[in-house]
């Protein structure tokens, strides 16, 4: 896109883009580390994730403030306005991703003592890998602003949902086998749910990017394959 007549305006928009990319990098790292801490019972790493969260909180605040000032000064319209509103929304999604990573990290302490079955850890790792790929790709799309790629990410959230549902069933089985598993498995269930939510935030970001690029909302319902809300319900 061509440059603004006032170059300071371009600088302000570039600042937002740069900060969002930074936030994305930190969020990605936090999620990866939180799962590694969980699987390896690494308390020090978990502690690092917990303290890193404040960086994201601060970045979101700064992006919000810069956006408000830019709106007040420049009265942006059309693509510029969508760019700024999109930055605010993406920053808040990334901040939430950080929170979810932090929450997983906090559960490391509770789960650490009980020794997670290898198979479960694998499932969780796999789920996290998918969510991370999703997050990484959406950040790449943010850099390229390709509406087609944003749309394809949105369609892939289904896979994460499906694995989450199978993990949910597996955890239930462990809990039924031995009540002593209930505490760690419940924590793991929350962790799995957190990771699934990270996938949802990546999808939100993809939708925001699509809107920023085109000015239209992506068409159709978001694909869903998370059936856990009704799992175990008595069927008529």
């Amino acid at each position, binding site marked *: *896109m*061509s*440059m*603004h*007549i*006032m170059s300071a*305006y371009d600088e302000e928009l570039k600042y937002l883009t740069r900060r969002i990319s930074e936030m994305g990098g930190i969020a990605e790292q936090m999620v990866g580390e939180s799962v590694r801490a969980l699987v390896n019972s690494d308390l020090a790493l978990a502690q690092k994730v917990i303290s890193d969260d404040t960086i994201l909180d601060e970045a979101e605040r700064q992006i919000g403030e810069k956006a408000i000032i830019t709106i007040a000064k420049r*009265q*942006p*319209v*059309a*693509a*510029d*306005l*969508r760019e700024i509103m999109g930055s605010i929304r993406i920053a808040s999604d990334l901040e939430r991703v950080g929170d979810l990573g932090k929450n997983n990290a906090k559960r490391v302490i509770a789960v650490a003592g009980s020794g997670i079955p290898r198979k479960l850890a694998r499932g969780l790792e796999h789920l996290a890998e998918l969510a991370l790929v999703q997050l990484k790709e959406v950040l790449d799309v943010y850099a390229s602003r390709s509406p087609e790629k944003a749309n394809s990410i949105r369609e892939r959230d289904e896979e994460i949902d499906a694995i989450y549902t199978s993990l949910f069933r597996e955890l239930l089985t462990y809990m039924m086998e031995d009540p002593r598993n209930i505490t760690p498995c419940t924590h793991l269930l929350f962790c799995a749910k957190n990771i699934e939510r990270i996938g949802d935030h990546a999808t939100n970001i993809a939708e925001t990017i699509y809107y920023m690029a*085109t*000015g*239209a909302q992506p068409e159709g319902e978001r694909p869903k394959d998370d059936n856990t809300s009704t799992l175990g319900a008595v069927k008529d």
Partner: protein
Amino acid sequence: MNIMSEAAVEKALDQKMNTVPYKMIGKDVSVYYGEKRALFDVNLNIRENTVTALIGPSGCGKSTFLRTLNRMNDTIENCRVTGKITLDEDDIYDPTIDVVELRARVGMVFQKPNPFPKSIYDNVAYGPRIHGLARTKSEFDDVVETSLQKAGLWNEVKDRLQEPGTGLSGGQQQRLCIARAVAVSPEVILMDEPCSALDPIATAKVEELIHELRSNFTIVIVTHSMQQAARVSQRTAMFHLGNLVEENDTDKMFTNPDDQRTQDYIMGRFG
């Protein structure tokens, strides 16, 4: 009870906008100043009881187009207009049309307030007097009061109607000019950058006035302020180098315009 969703209401309003009848129709309008062509086959229709904003960089032809709508270009030597412009069903460039009559139906407000060097009262009474719209003293009093009220100026000037119009502040003078335009009950009011010489408060008052006048008049406004176009109009037309580039609902124009040139212009980017 049938409650419409917000989206349904929006859609209905849009459709309503699309069914608003045209007050003026411009077909293949071109304007030449001597050898120089200033407008290229512009097709632009003006909807009834709607505020239509004309935007575009300096020299793009928006004021030229505005002035074709009440034949103000007639006053410029070697200016030639081709194409067809109708007001309701009447071709306004038909040789049998009385131009004075036309300008009573299509009034105009200019960039710089230009009150006559007369009293406030006579400024407003002038139009009705030459068009024979009022006869007795009480009829004149009536039209002066209602016009000043419509222009939101009555309360500020009612105790000094005999003072000169030129003694008012800039914003008041502009509203006096609007009262003067309104006094002859025009159908269409053309405004050529009516707020460019006014401070923000006077601008807000004029904008509020445009908003109110819309229910009785069809308004076409040329403005250099994008924010003003976004605030006061329902339709926006973008001109560039003598061409009409895009005409669209104002909401669409300022969130997601169709044309790249519109996009660059309203965002303040290099085209």
